[in-house]
């Protein structure tokens, strides 16, 4: 068996990687991918901690997956829209609104 700490470490690493992706990649879709990674990290945590009779963590993870799907759908739709207007999805090139 794997010690439970390992799950936590892996989840932490996963979250960090996700975060790094979000922070450093210019491409909006990459950012979305990063977010998915972060969500997965959380899920891993939930499941790792779900030791009792009550499968609370499992359900939570399930719902998170569902929400992630919804979010990804809307997110991609928005990105497409952006692409239509800006002809790019580089986040740093999207800067129309000024003070």
């Amino acid at each position: 068996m794997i010690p439970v700490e390992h799950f936590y470490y892996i989840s932490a690493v996963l979250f960090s990687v996700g975060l790094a992706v979000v922070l450093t990649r210019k491409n909006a879709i990459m950012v979305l991918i990063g977010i998915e990674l972060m969500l997965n990290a959380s899920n891993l945590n939930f499941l790792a901690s779900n030791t009792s009779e009550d499968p609370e963590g499992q359900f939570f993870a399930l719902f998170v997956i569902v929400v992630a799907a919804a979010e990804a759908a809307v997110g991609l739709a928005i990105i497409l829209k952006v692409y239509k207007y800006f002809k790019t999805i580089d986040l740093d090139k999207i800067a129309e609104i000024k003070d």
Partner: protein
Amino acid sequence: MFIVIFILIIPLFSFVINALLSSGKATFGSYCSVALLLLSTLGAIHVLFFIETKVLTSQVDWFSVGDQSFKVGLLVDFQGAVMLAVVSLISLLVHLYSIVYMAQDSGYGRYFATLSLFTFAMNGIVLSNNLLMIFLFWELVGLSSYLLIGHWYTKTSASEAAKKAFIVNRIGDAGFIVALCIVWCQFGSFNLIDIQSQMEASQIQNGYWSSELNALPKVWLSILGIGFFLAAVGKSAQFPLQVWLPDAMEGPTPVSALIHAATMVAAGVFLMSRVFVLLDGLTLSIIAFIGALTAFMGGVAALAQFDIKKVLAYSTISQLGYMLMGIGVGAYEAALFHLFTHAFFKAALFLAAGSVIHSMHEIAHKNHLELDAQDMRLMGGLKSKLPVTFYAYLVGSFALMGLPLFSGFLSKDALLIASVNWSYQIGNVAYLIPSLAFVTVLLTSFYMVRQLLLVFFGRPRIEISDLREFGWHFKLPLIVLSVFSLGLIWSLNPFDYSHSWFLAALPGKLNVTPEFDVVIPDLTNHALVGVISVILVALGTGLAWLKFRPGRELMLSKTGQFTLLENLSLNNWYLDVIYEKTVLRIVRVSTSALAVLETRVIDRAVNLLGWVGVVFSFLLRWFDQTIVDGLIKFSAFFSSQVGGMTKSFQYGKVQSFIIFALVSLLLLIFLIL
């Protein structure tokens, strides 16, 4: 008592009548006021004969503050009654005189209104039984003086003179107010009689001056006296505030006679006599010294003037100096005596001078000449043309010089003796005071004789052939005033003031200042002093005769060179210049400095607050854009320098913000931990 109120109120009526009448009926108004003033003069004389040594007083509540009440009340004692009579009489005569003198003036009604207002206010000062009321009327007198000096307001010099007079007076009033504060604080009352009795009861102990109510450090007693004295200095044109009086001659001449010679300027002396009990040794010495100094300075300043009225003005200053010196040496009754005699002869002189000036105007008008009607260098030989004027002037001058048989001799004698006695008592430096006084006697006779000679003797310097003296409006006042300048009116023995009915009627010594007991004048030196003064008068007359005897035409050219002394005299010791250079300059500089402070510093400091707000917002923006973004920029820069991995400096906004948020989050967590 009713009659006293009546006397007080009558001039006010006169004021109201004149103020409300339209300009068409101004003459009627002026006669009205003459009639009214006649009434009040009669009343005053009635009171004078009736009063003797009684002291009439009555008061009612004016308003109350807390449990203290401020009262209005009247006080008539002998000195007040005499003063009242003098003021009323001279005022009556001046009103009468003015009817003709001002006949051509456009501000006729205004003139009479203010003149009546002045009479009212002056009566008020005389009759008030408390200091607050005195102050009230004191200021009112100042106001009417202001208005009368500025009567010809279109003349810049007149309006400036008026302003100067009021402001300088105001400085004195500041002293009055301070003194009032001290009195109120110490006695809780302004009533003169209360003050006197409370002052007697008060003590000086351990450096504290304690009355029933309160105890103040001793120095406040001196400040009190100096405060009152400052008021008198302002009003009575003493050094260093005498500068306004010569300028005040810009006013119509009757006004100068009434206000700036006879009555108002004497109010300072009158006030000092009213508050005499409150003066302590230090104050008295200061008063004596300033008085004597002013007498001397005024005398010197009068020496070389060419303006007929200015000579008289400086002479007034000088005489007022005498009076205050008298107060200072403790001879307040002598001072009052001189006040009254001076009032008459100086009024006579001024009115006579007015007559001369009026005549000169007449000449100028007839001959279409542009000339200064007050310049003595243009006069001369008027004796025959204006006989009544001349004799009035002569009598007045003799009284002023202090020749025996004239009133001035009596009162001046009394003052001189008092000062001599006082200096005996004190010794040392104090001898300076009688010495100055005696020198002034010499100066007085010199400038008066000079004036007489220049104006009335010799050949006329301009064409005066068709000159004619004016009617009874002029003559009557001149005659009456001249009569009052004779010694016999005042004392049966014209050589000895101690026989004067006036001095006899005054109550005994008033001085109760705890610390310092002023000596009772010792009359043994009487004869000596009298003789010395007469000799000095003769000397002065001689000198003047030598220099200005008819026929000698020297130093009269307008372009002539003046000696140092003459310059000093002509310019009144350069006091105006000095004030201009110092006091006014300081005020001006500090004013503009404050104005600069106001606009530059204070306003800015406050705007700074707003500005800081704006700057702050920009800072925040800068923070938002530079730090938040700049952090990223910097990191990009950093990485390009160190790592050389990226070639672009681009940065993404959203992600930068996320970084910013995360940094905040981390900070937050560290804050917690």
